[in-house]
């Protein structure tokens, strides 16, 4: 086979994964590969994780909006979201985010994209709006069955699950809400349109196809999507993540740089 190919496989695996060692860095342990990268990696892990979480949540929303959601893809994204949330809960970062917000506002903030925020104007008028609160309004019967009042008391961890159930129930119930989505949808779909519904690489890199280059993938996530990352980062910056509070754009560049270092190493 050639050791080279084996080497690049390892490199790819390394670059694809956010290594466990980074988490160790976060916990302050010693074994760091490349001290500079290690130290700089501390904030980037949270950034990456947060970015991934945001993107996954948007995609989950999109899955719901699509005429015919791909169940496998939705489940994989939802599992990733759940995994990140569990991790953040263990880290304590999740609680901190919750502490900053109150009640319903927390649900809205979970989905913090430009488009979704823009559509908050529509929230007043119609029920067909992509925000957790109003989603649940649409499916009152489901909510009644769930017995949970997502508008006021549900934890933010609950919300994605409800979203999922609504989304999956949608597959079995008639599709009703298409009309008012279109405006915001069109913009979302430009960047996040899923051309081949079955390709997992599209999960995290719509326009950019070099999935296996973590660097490019994350760059793609941050530049190609209209997620308004600056907004989200400011909203969600965890107290431990002081770097992002200052100037998020330079932090994204830092992230790029860090990842590039990791890719090369």
């Amino acid at each position, binding site marked *: 086979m050639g050791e*080279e190919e*084996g*080497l690049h496989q390892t490199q790819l*695996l390394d670059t*694809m994964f956010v290594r466990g060692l980074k988490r160790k860095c976060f916990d302050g342990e010693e074994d760091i590969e490349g001290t500079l990268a290690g130290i700089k990696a501390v904030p980037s892990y949270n950034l990456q994780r947060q970015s991934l979480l945001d993107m996954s949540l948007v995609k989950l929303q999109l899955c719901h909006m699509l005429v015919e959601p791909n*169940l496998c893809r939705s489940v994989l994204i939802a599992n990733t979201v759940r995994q990140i949330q569990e991790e953040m809960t263990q880290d304590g970062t999740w609680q901190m985010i919750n502490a900053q917000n109150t009640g319903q506002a927390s649900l809205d903030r979970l989905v913090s994209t430009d488009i979704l925020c823009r559509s908050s104007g529509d929230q007043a008028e119609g029920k067909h709006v992509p925000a957790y609160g109003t989603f649940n309004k649409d499916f009152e019967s489901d909510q009644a069955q769930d017995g949970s009042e997502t508008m006021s008391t549900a934890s933010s961890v609950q919300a994605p699950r409800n979203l999922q159930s609504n989304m999956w129930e949608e597959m079995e119930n*008639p599709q009703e809400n298409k009309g008012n989505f279109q405006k915001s949808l069109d913009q979302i779909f430009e960047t996040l349109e899923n051309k081949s519904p079955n390709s997992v690489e599209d999960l995290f890199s719509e326009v950019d196809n*070099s999935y*296996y280059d973590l660097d490019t993938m994350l760059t793609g996530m941050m530049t190609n999507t209209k997620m308004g990352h600056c907004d989200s980062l400011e909203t969600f910056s965890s107290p431990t993540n002081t770097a992002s509070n200052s100037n998020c754009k330079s932090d994204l560049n830092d992230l790029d740089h860090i990842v590039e270092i990791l890719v090369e190493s």
Partner: protein
Amino acid sequence: CVLVWCFSQVKGAVDDDVAEADIISTVEFNHSGELLATGDKGGRVVIFQQEQENKTQSHSRGEYNVYSTFQSHEPEFDYLKSLEIEEKINKIRWLPQKNAAQFLLSTNDKTIKLWKISERDKRPEGYNLKEEDGRYRDPTTVTTLRVPVFRPMDLMVEASPRRIFANAHTYHINSISINSDYETYLSADDLRINLWHLEITDRSFNIVDIKPANMEELTEVITAAEFHPNSCSTFVYSSSKGTIRLCDMRASALCDRHSKLFEEPEDPSNRSFFSEIISSISDVKFSHSGRYMMTRDYLSVKIWDLNMENRPVETYQVLGENHFECCWNGSDSIVMTGSYNNFFRMFDRNSKRDITLEASRENNKPRTVLKPRKVCASGKRKKDEISVDSLDFNKKILHTAWHPKENIIAVATTNNLYIFQDKMN
């Protein structure tokens, strides 16, 4: 050793502008290897037939030429859910040949159809009441009677739908598999597997149901399913969580409890955000012998011994994503799977050697030997190697098939079908 491969043929349009309907979605040899079927996104099935071997041309096997083309599925609209049902052919499976006609099952997301492909090379002539063109003759003009006879005609291959198996799947069908009893088959969607009898279309039996009572708790879907090649009560199904379950239909009517669970324990140091996604299995195939099965996930092809559940016996690293298929050669000694950049890979299980080849129109002179390709780490490119950065991730080989008896392979790029054979002599 891994064989040396030569280009044989390429089918499909030359231009780069691919019509969506022409995208090949499935490839399958029949049991003898004489017929090769492809399905596409437009709902069509094209069957190629191998020419009888020319005895004077001993250095190449017969070519595959178009035998039959038919529209298997049309787009439909589900009025209840306001959803369009795609006509894309997800899978084709051949039945073994029992008489002069050939039978295959083809399926889209919701409906499975049994097609009969038959040849007609004679037609009756000399009717008493009809002219040759079909017009009726005036009976009063008939003065003599004759017996119609069959006369040879140009070969016509007809495809007719013999059974339509519909309305049994709420979710998208991803697999069909014919049982070794050749009377029943299974169809699997994201959450359920149904058992059908080939003769009965108005009824199917649900044998696996992983839909949770509360959809909020859904964390796993079925990604592929297949019957065991020899044991008619055994089948396997793979999941998005990277597990394979082997079930025995004799144990109970609803096989919700597996007989065996194949899962490789996760290496905790490799855990990442993407662990969930990359463990998802895209394809599972039994070996012809039935002793092993192969699974394809994001990063590897794994060979499992049915007698060992806790880990695979062989693992081959490969680039890919979760909808690449894999296949065995006839003797189960080599496995093949597709990759990006129109590359496909073969792994020789005995010698542990592997080879990467490319399906490209550049090599399209018959009997051109394919040059092995090498993918290298970025920044370390040697001559003739391709850096992983410059792989074209849009050019995927998702579907590959290996002739059941000979070293002939069919490899589908987006809209072209390539046929390669090993270098004889």
